[in-house]
Structure formats: C-alpha cells, structure tokens
C-alpha cells in the first residue's frame, strides 16, 4: 500500500470514530427526552418544527444547540482562568479519545491489505480505555477548582471521589473476562466471543455476559457511576445540589453536557464490546457472512421494505389526528411526509434487491458487505445500551452519598474481587 492510501485510510477511520459519538449525540439527547416522557405518560417534545416536520421532537435538539451556542459565554472574573477554560475541553476530549480503540467490525481484508476497523489498533486496548478514562476526573477537578467557588469545589470533590471509587470496581470487574480471553486486544476479545459452547445440542455464543455474569453486572453498574448518570448522578443532580459546573455557561456548559452523552456512547460501546459480542452477528461469524453476503443483504433489504410497508399503515391514522389537531398549520402534512419517505424506502429497497440479484456480491464486495453488516450490528447493540442508560436513569431514584460510597466500597469492590479469584481459580483448573 502506498503511504498516501495508508494515510487516507487512517484518517478515514479516525474520522469515522469521531463522527459516531458526535452524530449519536442529538439522537441520545432526543432519546433522553422522548423516552423519559413516554415512561412518565407524557408526550415529550413535539413543538419545534422545520416546515411542519417535527420528526418526533428531534428538531428540539437542533434548537437546543442553537440556543446554547448563541448564549453569552461568561467567564466570571473570580475564576482561575486557565483551569476554568481547560476543564470542558478535557471532559470532551477524554470522552472522544476513549472511543478510538473500540473495534466496530472485523479486520477487513481487501486484496492483500488488512484494514483494522479501529481508529487506533493497540494490543492493550483495555488499558488504553482505563488510562484515558481516568483522565476524565481531571476535567471535573479542574472545573470544580477553577471556578474558585466553594460550592463548585465541593461538587468537584464529591464527583471525583465517586469516580475514583467506582473506577476500582470497574477495572476489577473485567479482569476476569481478560483472564478468560487471555488478551487485552479488544478485537481479539470480540473474536473470542464469536465462539460457542455447547449446552446439549444448542450452541450458545460465548458472550462475556454469559462467561462472567457477575462481572457484567458490576461493570455495568460501575460504568453508570463513571458516566455520572442516575442513580449515581450526584456530581450533577442539578435539581438538588450544586455541582462542579455551576459557573459555566453557554458553549462551555454545552461541552460538559455533550461530554456526558459522548460518555454514554462510549460506555455503551464498551459494554457491547466486552460483554455482548461487539460486532459479532449472533451465530454468523465473519467467514459465514462473507460466504453468504448475497443472501444476508437481500434479506436485510427485504426486511426493510416490509417494515416500511407496515409503518405506512399507522401514518394514515396519524394523518387524521393531525388534521383534527392542526387544521391551519404546516404540521398537518407531517404524516404524509413520512409516508412518502417510507414509500421511497420501499422503492429503494426493492431497487436494491433488483440490483443485487442482477449483480451478485462476490470477492472484495462480499468482504466490504460483511464489514458493513458487522458495523450495523455493532451500532444496533450500541444504540440498545444507549437506550438502557436512559431507561435506567428514568427508573431508579438517586442514591444518597453514603449509600453510594457504601455500595461502591462495601458491595461492589469485594464482589469484584471475589469474581476475580473464582475466575482465576477456574481458569487455572481448566488449564
């Protein structure tokens, strides 16, 4: 490979990895609002519109970002300017950098070239995640200290104490998995999860959650605490106590806000990669996917056409509701707009089926197809865990600070250690 091609591939991978969390950001914020609303039996955001298209409230996110960007950016005079300005950037950078080692598809073989579907291929990927993620606490400490305000610094201390406490259980909980996989390379861990163990006649994929159920529960709990989400969102708890980012306004506040959602994306990606098979399509390994690329693509396109056709039916009823609610408004056409979009989906899917029947997928394109399918699988898992974060937040009440520390040090840490010892013993026995 020429250096130019190599450079551009590396740049492309890096761009993709940076784009995923940023592109998911509006979706996550939208999900947070809409899911929480539906869980409370409310309708949620449904006002902001572009030419009557509200897209279920996604447009609100756009309005939100515009608002945050256009607000006055205040730097109070009493702050430590350097730390104050640095903190939001650390928070954001750290969240984005962690994503670099997540594999989003198997190694792609194009001719003689092997392209790794990671921005950064490290054989110590797990260590990279922990080392970078532990930098995240600096963002919070700097924000709390730099604001030069006693409430901020208390909030910062509280937050950093929590993050450091839960980082222990976080790291210990996946040591067992690493022992079983025998590697720190995330792509290898995912490959290992593509294997099966037989339960009678039924093959069961060796997903981390089945190998290490206790580790998975501890990891998921700790990762929620690491991302400062409910039920561990004492660092923010904006409705009750003053947190580390009181003094921030406008886009600097938005950076903290965005960092939280990027953190969720990263955490979901981690949970999916370590415990739920990453890019593995259940029961279809990479070789099978490449061999059967044609059938899989046709099946996906057919499914897309079918789902779109089924979704058109409710839009007719919705159209009537809209006509009754908004008779003198652009919004009354929204159902028709989505019906047209769905129709275009069907046409596109059917056209795709025709195209792929005429030109069967073989050779290089089969490899690319397999990678795309794995990427979509990975994104599906990531989105599910992103939803799970929102789901947990709107279900559970917040822990009190002593309960939080008690759970971290007296509950999860001993359990993680126990899990570690038992796993170590089992691994030794098997050897």
């Amino acid at each position: 490979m020429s250096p130019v091609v190599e450079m551009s591939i590396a740049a492309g991978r890096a761009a993709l990895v940076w784009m995923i969390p940023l592109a998911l950001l509006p979706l996550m914020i939208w999900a947070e609002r809409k899911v929480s609303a539906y869980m409370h039996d409310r309708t949620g955001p449904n006002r902001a519109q572009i030419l009557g298209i509200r897209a279920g409230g996604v447009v609100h996110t756009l309005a939100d970002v515009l608002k945050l960007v256009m607000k006055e950016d205040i730097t109070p005079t009493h702050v430590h300017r350097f730390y104050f300005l640095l903190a939001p950037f650390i928070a954001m950078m750290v969240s984005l950098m962690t994503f670099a080692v997540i594999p989003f598809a198997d190694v792609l073989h194009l001719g003689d070239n092997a392209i790794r579907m990671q921005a950064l291929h490290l054989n110590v990927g797990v260590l990279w995640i922990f080392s970078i993620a532990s930098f995240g606490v600096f963002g919070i400490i700097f924000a709390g200290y730099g604001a030069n305000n006693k409430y901020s610094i208390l909030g910062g201390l509280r937050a950093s104490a929590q993050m450091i406490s839960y980082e222990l259980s976080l790291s210990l909980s996946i040591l067992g998995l690493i022992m079983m996989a025998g590697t720190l390379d995330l792509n290898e861990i995912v490959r290992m999860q593509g294997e099966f163990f037989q339960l009678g006649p039924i093959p069961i994929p060796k997903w981390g959650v089945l190998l290490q159920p206790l580790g998975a529960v501890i990891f998921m709990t700790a990762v929620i605490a690491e991302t400062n989400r409910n039920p561990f969102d004492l660092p923010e708890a904006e409705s009750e106590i003053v947190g580390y980012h009181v003094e921030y306004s406008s886009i600097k506040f938005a950076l903290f806000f965005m960092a939280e959602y990027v953190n969720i994306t990263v955490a979901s990606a981690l949970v999916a990669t370590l415990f739920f098979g990453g890019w593995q399509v259940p029961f279809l390994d990479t070789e099978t996917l490449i061999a059967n690329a044609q059938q899989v693509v046709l099946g996906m396109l057919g499914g897309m056409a079918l789902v779109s056709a089924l979704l058109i039916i409710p839009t007719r009823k919705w159209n009537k509701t809209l006509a009754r609610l908004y008779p003198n408004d652009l919004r009354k056409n929204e159902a028709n707009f989505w019906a047209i979009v769905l129709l275009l989906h069907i046409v596109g899917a059917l056209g795709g089926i025709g195209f792929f029947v005429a030109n069967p997928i073989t050779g290089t394109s089969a490899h690319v197809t397999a990678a795309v399918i794995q990427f979509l699988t990975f994104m599906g898992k990531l989105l599910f865990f992103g939803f799970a974060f929102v789901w947990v937040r709107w279900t559970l009440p917040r822990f009190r600070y002593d309960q939080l520390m008690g759970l971290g040090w007296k509950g999860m840490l001993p359990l993680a250690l126990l899990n570690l010892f038992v796993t170590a013993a089992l691994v030794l026995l098997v050897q």
Partner: protein
Amino acid sequence: MALKVASPKLSFLERIYVAEVFRGLGVTFRHLAKNVVNQSDMPTVQFPEQPKPLAVRHRSRHRLTVRENGQPKCVACMCCETACPARCIHIVAEESDEVWIEKRCKTFEIDLLRCVFCGYCVEACPEDAIRMDTDEVILVGERREDFIVGREFLMFGKGDDWKTGRPAEVAVPRPGDPEAPPATPDEDAGWRDGAPRERIKIPAGWRANSKEV
C-alpha cells in the same frame, strides 16, 4: 424534635438491588411500550390547539360593560382602583355629559402584567361596570407597554391603547342598529391577527403614580 422514620424491613433479594432494579425497569418499559403503541391515553393536552374548557367561576381578562349609548358604565368612583391589591388600575375621571350621571372615566387603564387576576375590582364595583368574563387567558405582547390596556380596548376588545396609540373611532352602538359591534370583545379582531403593533404612548401621570408603589 427528632423524627423517627420507620424504614421497611427489606428482604435479602431487595437488599442486593438487582432483582428489584429489573422489576422497576419492567414497570417503566411497560409504560414506554404502551405509549409508543397508543398515545390516546396520555393525559397531556396539546394546549393552544386543544383548549381546555374554562371553569364556570374562572376569571379571565377584564372588560368594561357598556351602556346602551356606547359609554362605559363606569362612574369613576375609584372603588376598583382602591380595592386592587396589585395597584394595576388607573382611572382618570371627568365630568359626564349626561345629567343623571355625575362622573365618568376619561381614561381607564389596566396593566395586565401587574394584575393578579384576583377579581377584587369586580367585587368592589357598585355599577357592574367591570367584569372578568372575556374567556381570554392567553395574553400576548412584545413589550411591557403592550399590556397596559385602555378604555376602548376594555370596552370593545380593540381600540386606542393596544393597537394604534391614538383613540380609535369606535362606532357608538344604538339599540336596533344591525351593525352594532358586540359589547364583549371579538376574539378574532384584536388579539391574534399578527398585525404589527405600534408603540404606545404612556400617559405621563401613569409613570409618576406607579413610582410611588
């Protein structure tokens, strides 16, 4: 006094959280699924499009009732201005043309932003000259001055202060006149037609008086 809080005894399963957490997740997911499939059970009212019926005894924006000759019933007794706890009413009295009425209001202004909609003015009025039954609960303006509404507006729902800053030529309704404007404000006329509003000149006395408060 110390308060003793009795906390319920938790079983072991409840104390390790996990099972209970999943139970809670089930509850929220049921609600989510139900509302994704069918939103008609939601109690949310899409307010401006689906107005809720107002209560029988509600108090909405004020109006001044009108005599048959088109003059306000108000005799400028200042009872409402005195009764008003928010001091949002300001009346300037003048001598009436009619022999059996001593005074009438020259200006009658209500600052709707200061008004707390308590209805004391209605109770205080000996002449039934002011009522709060226009059913208007959405009051929109772009400046604070927009909300200081005057006599013509309060009588006919349109007029000098809100729209143009100068006295409107209000057709005086006569009994039996088919074209007589309604005594209650016409909803479509003044409030939401989107026409640009000009700046209102605030009477000099108004500001001077409000400063004392």
